[in-house]
């Protein structure tokens, strides 16, 4: 075991620890010599607690034990000076007041000659007295538990101190390893860290202690700080009401009104465009005789996705037809179709652009996140303000929610095209357009198809929400079921939406698999 290399870690431990170097070198050697947890005691850490962590730059240690010690301190504080029965006592006083009031009323009624009324009031007063006695009892019981709580707090504190003492060196050794491998980790003691830690303690402990151990913390604080803290600045709630919120939301209203008034033509144009697509699809799906639509759909499923999907498709269509939901379903599919078509038509070019330009993507990414995470109800409001109600605004709401996946996955696919392949194509004289259509888009296709699929499914999930702003179809059926708590109607409508989604999804996936030659 005469390994000379073994010396160098020791030396670097001393360099790391600075103060008390030899002690830490010894302890770390012990820790490193054990496979499991090494019992290594650090008195300094146990005595100073979080402040030791602050001085040594072990901030995880600092915060963890700051909270734990605070918890123990709160118990100790409650045991020592906490008015433990205070809330029950307050209740008792309140009940006494009520009893006095009833008795006064009873006396009045007796004076007025209404003996029955007086008896009733006295009966209530008696009931209240029983409750008051119970509250008083609870208050006394609570204050008698003070000693138990104090002892619990002290025991807790002792356990925490032990944990600090035994955990400190293990944590510090981990920090040493980070320091050794050149990551950001403090070495030695730092006065600034200690000062910051002390300020943190002072900011957190006293206020929290007061809040949890004193019955009326604001009044207690006000009496100590001469009315500043607790008086003008309450510590139990933030001293601001709704005034800023109201002012800003009024400004927001004005802004939306201004936009709606000044850009009405633009919004009308958008609405008209969407309506055009939508009308086309509706004519196709609804005006065409139902046997034709059904036949074409089943044959398409058979050709593109095989017999199993075709059987499933036929069954789903039969369900829609026999439930009398055929027309509603076609309206819904037209709605989704228009949404998905616009998503793809706008989303794929955007995705290509974002895939090629890192800067554009960096700007667009937060917008896409916003579109996907913002609850739909939030953007329904401006959509109604600008576009009114009906189907086109419903399609727009769908666009907001369903477009991000196709943009993202197109961009992802574009960026996933191997540089080497693009380079080879350029080396053979490809222009940018040839590169895009011969190399990048074909190689990104799997990703793009996944994006389109996602978009279709997400459009479906928006049907119910879109019906909130007047888009008809199966969504409206479910909305109605929700309003009248019509469970059966809701279930049947939900199944209809599910079948629409699955048919579209299975046919699309089957078609894609067929194209790429997978099976």
């Amino acid at each position, binding site marked *: 075991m005469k390994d000379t290399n073994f010396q160098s870690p020791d030396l670097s431990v001393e360099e790391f620890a600075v103060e008390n170097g030899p002690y830490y070198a010894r302890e770390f050697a012990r820790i490193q010599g054990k496979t499991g947890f090494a019992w290594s005691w650090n008195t300094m850490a146990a005595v100073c607690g979080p402040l030791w962590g602050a001085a040594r730059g072990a901030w995880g240690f600092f915060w963890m034990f700051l909270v734990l010690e605070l918890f123990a301190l709160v118990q100790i504080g409650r045991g020592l000076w906490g008015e433990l029965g205070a809330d029950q006592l307050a209740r008792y006083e309140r009940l006494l007041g009520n009893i006095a009031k009833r008795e006064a009323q009873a006396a009045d009624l007796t004076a007025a000659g209404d003996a029955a009324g007086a008896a009733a009031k006295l009966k209530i007063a008696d009931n209240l007295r029983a409750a008051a006695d119970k509250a008083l009892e609870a208050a006394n019981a609570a204050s008698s538990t003070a000693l138990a709580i104090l002892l619990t707090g002290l025991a807790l504190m002792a356990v925490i101190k032990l944990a600090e003492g035994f955990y400190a060196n293990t944590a510090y050794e981990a920090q040493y390893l980070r320091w050794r491998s050149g990551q950001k980790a403090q070495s030695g003691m730092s006065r600034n860290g200690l000062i910051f830690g002390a300020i943190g303690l002072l900011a957190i402990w006293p206020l929290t202690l007061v809040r949890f151990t004193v019955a009326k913390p604001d009044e207690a604080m006000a009496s100590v700080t001469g009315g500043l803290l607790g008086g003008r600045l309450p510590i139990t709630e933030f001293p601001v009401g709704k005034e800023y919120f109201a002012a800003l939301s009024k400004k927001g209203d004005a802004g939306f009104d201004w936009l709606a008034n000044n850009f009405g033509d633009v919004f009308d144009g958008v609405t008209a465009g969407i309506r055009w697509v939508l009308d086309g699809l509706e004519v196709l799906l609804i005006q065409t005789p139902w046997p034709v639509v059904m036949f074409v759909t089943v044959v398409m499923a058979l050709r593109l996705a095989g017999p199993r999907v075709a059987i499933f498709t036929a069954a789903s269509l039969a369900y829609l037809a026999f439930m009398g939901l055929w027309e509603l379903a076609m309206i819904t599919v037209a709605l989704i179709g228009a949404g998905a078509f616009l998503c793809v038509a706008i989303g794929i070019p955007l995705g290509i652009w974002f895939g090629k330009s890192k800067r554009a993507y960096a700007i667009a990414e937060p917008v896409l996140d916003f579109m996907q995470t913002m609850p739909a109800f939030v953007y329904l409001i401006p959509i109604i303000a600008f576009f009114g109600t009906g189907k086109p605004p419903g399609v727009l709401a769908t666009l907001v929610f369903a477009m991000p996946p196709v943009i993202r996955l197109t961009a992802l696919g574009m960026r996933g095209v191997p540089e080497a*392949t693009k380079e*080879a*194509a350029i*080396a*053979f004289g*490809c222009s940018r357009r040839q590169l895009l259509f011969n190399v990048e888009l*074909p190689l990104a296709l799997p990703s793009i198809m996944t994006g389109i699929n996602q978009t279709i499914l997400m459009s479906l999930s928006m049907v119910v929400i879109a019906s909130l702003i007047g888009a008809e179809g199966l969504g409206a059926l479910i909305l109605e079921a929700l309003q009248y708590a019509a469970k059966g109607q809701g279930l049947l409508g939900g199944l209809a939406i599910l079948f629409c989604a699955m048919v579209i999804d299975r046919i699309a996936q089957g078609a894609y698999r067929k194209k790429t030659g997978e099976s």
Partner: protein
Amino acid sequence: MTDNVITLDGVWKIFGNNADAAMAAIRERGLGKAEVLEEFNCVVGIADVSFEVKRGEIFCVMGLSGSGKSTMVRHLNRLIEPTAGNISVMGRDMLTLSDADLREMRAMNIGMVFQHMALLPHRTVRDNVGFPLQVRGEPKSTRWEVSQRCLDKVNLTGFEDRFPRELSGGMQQRVGLARALASDPDVLLMDEPFSALDPLIRRQLQDQFMKLSAELNKTTVFITHDLDEAIRIGNRIAIMKDGRIVQIGTPEEIVTQPADDYVRDFVEGISKLKLVFAHSIMVPISEYQPTRPVNFDESPRAHHGTDLDQLIDIATSTENVIVITGDDGADIGVVDRATLLKGIQGGKA
């Protein structure tokens, strides 16, 4: 007009945002690679590279990874723009070409083979090979005819309708080679084409490539990190280190007269038997001092271009010294056993 197909003159490539400033500083103050990195946060890719490649020549560029050889070869078809210097290919200044002209050069005159094949996975072998022609706007019939011919050349007849993923690595690289040949380019750029293959397949492909290249007589720039490969394939070899060319010469020159220790280290493990020729080890006949009486008339004759391997064969069949003859048949030098053994050992006594 010289017979040089490719000419590079003082080409520099500096990567980074301050490349031009760094270039100026290098010109004025002669900064080194490390200083450029520190001062301008720029990386010197290739530094002051100049060479010519003659028509029909196979010019090997050999260097370890990071030596700039792949960067250098990408300058020849301007996949990478140089920071400074001149590049001309087939008498045209590559740097002043318009985008359209450059694309045309790439599609018509310069074929390239890549280390990782870079085939298009969604196209059949036939359509991969025909891709350069498609880019040029050739009709399908021409494309198919040409790709069939090129696939025949690389012995891939019968695989036209397969997809690249169905082929082994060696076969894929042959498709890559066929693709580079499809546009019948004058210049072939090969960027470590055989490096990713296992040794046996590599050797097969090297042989096939040499046969093909003798047949087609294309001007080739061949990048490799393997000196054995460079020596097997190259008419001339350039050795690169840290973006600079350390030495240019025929395989024999590189092996017998390494320019510095760096090259010497490489050359050490190389077998010299087929690289060193009689004229570089022989003692001129006028200076020859025999240790015992010899009779030149009974000695076997060998041309001065005979390699050591063949000289050994001759030496083992005779007791006499070997007389070396010049191109005109006159006796010009002598190789005796001692000279031969020294030569095998590596270099002249």
